[in-house]
């Protein structure tokens, strides 16, 4: 520890910290632009000049390390003069037209200029002009003349997003920020540049000119789009959500937000929103009153329960429904006498059900990921499925952690990957078991028989320190997920590490806590669709987009006598549903999400539900009343939550341990035809995201292509970019083919969850490709 003095205040600070850090720690503000606590030091703006005793000239506080006995003056005559001078220089080229700037009212330059600048400009010559750039549908670079060249956006790309998409070209007065050869900024974290930009150079494109910062009310909410549970500040005006910004929390999202969380709100006011309950009569949709629609639904359910039997009713919900909704849905089903309720729609292997000791979770707090020394990530499209988990792991890797990958595709994770084993999906279990084997051999001093990659991964994991095995969405959706889980458990035990699931959606843990899973006599999501039920209750589900096997799901829906779809949108359900009940998405309802780390976060609605849409928990409650079931008289969502998890020791409910057989059987890979590998594209994960126009305009939301190894393309006799027909079961679709030589042989990568591939079958399994 070092003792310094700032403005006469004695401060004890850590060795190696800078003056600005020490000052902020003591609550003394020093004006700055280029300095940001999460980014490297650039010292390019010079705004933080302070006077230091015995230094002949003012020094930049952000780049000056503290020394014992240092005396710093932030408001002395010399410091103030320096700050005023720098401010005048910064404003020389900055347009003074704050009234038309979108940043006006929340601009650092504006604030600092009032606090530290002169009253009027002495500069009357011409200002420099920087041409506008088009860097994609999310971030607007229309006003690049406003840039003060602090390079925060550049450093963010390099250091946090892992990808330098913006850079500073030219020198001196001609220096400007631009993307490489007019490219777009495609990072899944690009929206953070908007927050980082201290001026109005990089602003939000969808939000452009929509409102002033002072007109907006901010409401706290929680992200509904991934399992991280990022804190959101939802900015509203006139009962409309206009934008979303992060709420800082070091333990969850730090100060970042993924583009999915930030721009999904654009889908909330989509023209596809369902605003009135609807009933299909004689093949025609009719708007009706809530009472009519609910009675129709209740009568239908009662009729089927008494006629065909309650087990002929199945309930499916997505994992981004709130805890309250999932709880009431399962309560409704169980009240009716059916145990068929599930929220794990993309899962294929349910053999761990009943053997699971608790709700599968991350296995550790999110913040611990930053402290890992070695991590094995199994089956995860990490960057696209979990942008901020990826960023945390990237930071850990920068600090020396080793990232090891076992997966079926080799996408660029924008970080140094120590070892990787890229195998076809049916060999995933074998690949992971080899790591377990190698660890075992290493421990017992036996000769290594496993593959070289497995030995390298085992070596990396057995290095001691903090070790974790993380199972991604691909591993969780894998047909041998239970075996992968058992092996991960085994590896974690052998390395004294932790293991867990990254989690697919906002409430992947909460669904278990709400008991929205079938009991011993119930059917899980896959079984319910494989053996079609007579009636389905769908909560937030788009059958052809949210399930593991769209073909099968759609067939089951079409065969059903009655489908009650609770949805915020009018979607494909109009083809198979009988009742459409408009429900409120996450900004319009109160609710609770339980994040991957088991953090229970409740939130209130930021705006009123659109039209006649109502929170789903209220709809389910009234349905319960109409069906004359007991225990449906909660007045608030808090009451539902307390009934579901009140008094529950959440930590005790979380467990990845499975009582499955200690040594799982390893199936031998069968090589019959091509195997499908499917990801859910980042902007196709849930209903709201799918309707956000700016997100759908990004490169990540392009129509999926069929990716295969180059040699497979040659075998087929097609070139990169040609059209091919992929067929699975009864359905086929013609898509463009693309070569990815990093894919294993015999693998075809086609995305699931996208409208273009909704006619295909299971996410895993055989698929045939033919020339179109």
């Amino acid at each position, binding site marked *: 520890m070092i003792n310094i003095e700032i403005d006469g205040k004695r401060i004890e600070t850590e060795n190696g910290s800078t003056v600005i850090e020490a000052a902020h720690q003591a609550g003394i503000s020093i004006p700055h632009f280029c300095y940001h606590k999460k980014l490297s030091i650039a010292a390019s703006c010079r705004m933080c000049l302070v006077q230091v005793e015995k230094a002949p000239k003012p020094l930049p506080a952000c780049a000056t390390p503290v020394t014992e006995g240092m005396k710093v003056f932030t408001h002395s005559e010399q410091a103030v003069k320096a700050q005023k001078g720098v401010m005048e220089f910064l404003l020389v080229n900055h347009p003074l037209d704050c009234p038309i700037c979108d940043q006006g009212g929340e601009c650092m330059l504006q604030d600092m200029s009032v606090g530290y600048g002169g009253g009027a400009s002495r500069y009357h010559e011409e200002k420099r002009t920087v041409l506008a750039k088009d860097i994609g549908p999310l971030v607007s670079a229309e006003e690049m003349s406003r840039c003060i060249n602090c390079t925060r956006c550049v450093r963010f790309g390099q250091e946090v997003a892992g990808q330098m998409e913006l850079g500073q070209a030219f020198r001196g007065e001609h220096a400007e920020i631009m993307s490489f050869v007019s490219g777009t900024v495609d990072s899944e974290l690009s929206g953070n540049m908007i927050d980082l930009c201290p001026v109005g150079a990089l602003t939000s494109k969808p939000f452009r*000119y929509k409102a002033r910062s002072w007109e907006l009310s901010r409401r706290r909410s929680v992200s509904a789009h991934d399992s991280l549970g990022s804190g959101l500040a939802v900015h509203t005006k006139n009962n409309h959500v206009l934008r979303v910004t992060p709420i800082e929390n070091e333990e969850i999202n730090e100060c970042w937000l993924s583009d999915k969380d930030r721009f999904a709100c654009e889908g909330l006011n989509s023209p596809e929103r369902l605003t009135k309950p609807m009933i299909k009569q004689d093949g025609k949709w009719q708007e009706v009153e809530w009472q009519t629609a609910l009675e129709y639904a209740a009568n239908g359910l009662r009729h089927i329960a008494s006629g065909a039997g309650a087990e002929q009713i199945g309930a499916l919900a997505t994992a981004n429904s709130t805890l309250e909704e999932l709880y009431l849905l399962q309560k409704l089903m169980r009240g009716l006498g059916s145990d068929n309720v599930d929220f794990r729609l993309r899962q294929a292997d349910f053999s761990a059900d009943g053997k699971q000791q608790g709700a599968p979770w991350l296995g550790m707090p999110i913040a611990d990921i930053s402290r890992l020394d070695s991590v094995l990530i199994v089956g995860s499209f990490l960057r696209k499925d979990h942008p901020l988990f990826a960023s945390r792991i990237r930071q850990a890797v920068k600090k020396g952690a080793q990232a090891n990958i076992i997966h079926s595709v080799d996408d660029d994770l924008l970080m140094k990957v120590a070892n990787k084993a890229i195998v076809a999906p049916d060999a995933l279990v074998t690949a992971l078991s080899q790591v377990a084997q190698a660890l075992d051999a290493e421990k017992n001093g036996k000769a290594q028989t496993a593959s070289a990659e497995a030995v390298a991964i085992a070596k990396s994991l057995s290095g001691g320190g903090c070790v974790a095995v993380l199972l991604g969405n691909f591993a969780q959706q894998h047909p041998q997920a239970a075996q992968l889980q058992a092996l991960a458990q085994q590896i974690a035990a052998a390395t004294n590490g932790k293991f867990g699931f990254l989690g697919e959606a906002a409430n992947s843990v909460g669904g278990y806590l709400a008991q929205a899973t079938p009991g011993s006599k119930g059917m899980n999501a896959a079984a319910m669709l494989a053996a079609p039920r007579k009636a389905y209750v769908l909560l937030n589900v788009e059958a052809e987009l949210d399930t593991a096997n769209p073909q099968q799901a759609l067939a089951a829906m079409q065969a059903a006598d009655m489908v009650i779809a609770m949805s915020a949108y009018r979607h494909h359900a109009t083809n198979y549903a009988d009742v459409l009940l408009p429900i409120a998405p996450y900004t319009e309802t109160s609710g609770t999400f339980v994040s991957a780390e088991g953090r229970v976060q409740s939130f209130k609605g930021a705006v009123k539900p659109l039209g006649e849409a109502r929170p789903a928990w209220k709809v389910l409650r009234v349905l319960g009343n109409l069906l004359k079931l007991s225990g449906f008289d909660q007045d608030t969502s808090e009451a539902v939550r307390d009934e579901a998890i009140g008094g529950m020791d959440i930590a005790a409910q979380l467990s990845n341990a499975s009582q499955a057989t200690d040594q799982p059987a390893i199936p031998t890979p069968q090589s019959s035809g091509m195997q499908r590998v499917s990801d859910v594209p980042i902007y196709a994960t849930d209903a709201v995201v799918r309707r956000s126009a700016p997100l759908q305009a990004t490169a990540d939301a392009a129509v999926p292509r069929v990716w295969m190894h180059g040699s497979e393309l040659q075998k087929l006799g097609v070139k990169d970019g040609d059209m091919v027909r992929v067929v699975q079961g009864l359905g086929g679709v013609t898509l463009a083919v693309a070569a990815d030589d990093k894919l294993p042989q015999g693998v075809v990568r086609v995305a699931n969850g996208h409208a273009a591939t909704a006619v295909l079958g299971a996410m895993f399994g055989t698929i045939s490709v033919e020339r179109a």
Partner: protein
Amino acid sequence: MANIFNFFKSFLLLELLKGMAVTGKHLFSHKITVEYPEEKTPQSFRFRGLHAQRRYASGEERCIGCKLCEAVCPAMAIKIEVAERGDGSRRTTQYDIDLTKCIFCGFCEESCPVDAIVETRVFEYHGEKRGDLYYTKPMLLAVGDKHEAQIAKDRAADAKYR
């Protein structure tokens, strides 16, 4: 003694004569009454009457939709919606002043960075039914177009004090 004094005061109608003297004085003095509407009182160039939106000589509307007037308005009489126009500039799609709320404080014109919203010398306007005094953007622009010469003259006169 006082009784005798009062007797003479009332007997000689002294009070009446005093009053008549005042009346007489005013009968022949200069008149200050204005014969409205034939005659009008003089107005300052800072007179704060009916609002107007101005245009540049090119015909382009001045307002850039910065919303400062909306923010400063103490009566919350102004409502503005902004969007990007085809040419990329920031323009209002809605600019309404509810004159029944307005207290004519002049803060809006003072806050305007482009002299777009101004208060004119017009004070003779009325509404015959509810909503007539809710001035929308076309109405405000029409007022501006009609009185632009006077508005420009008044701004020029006031310029040296700003």
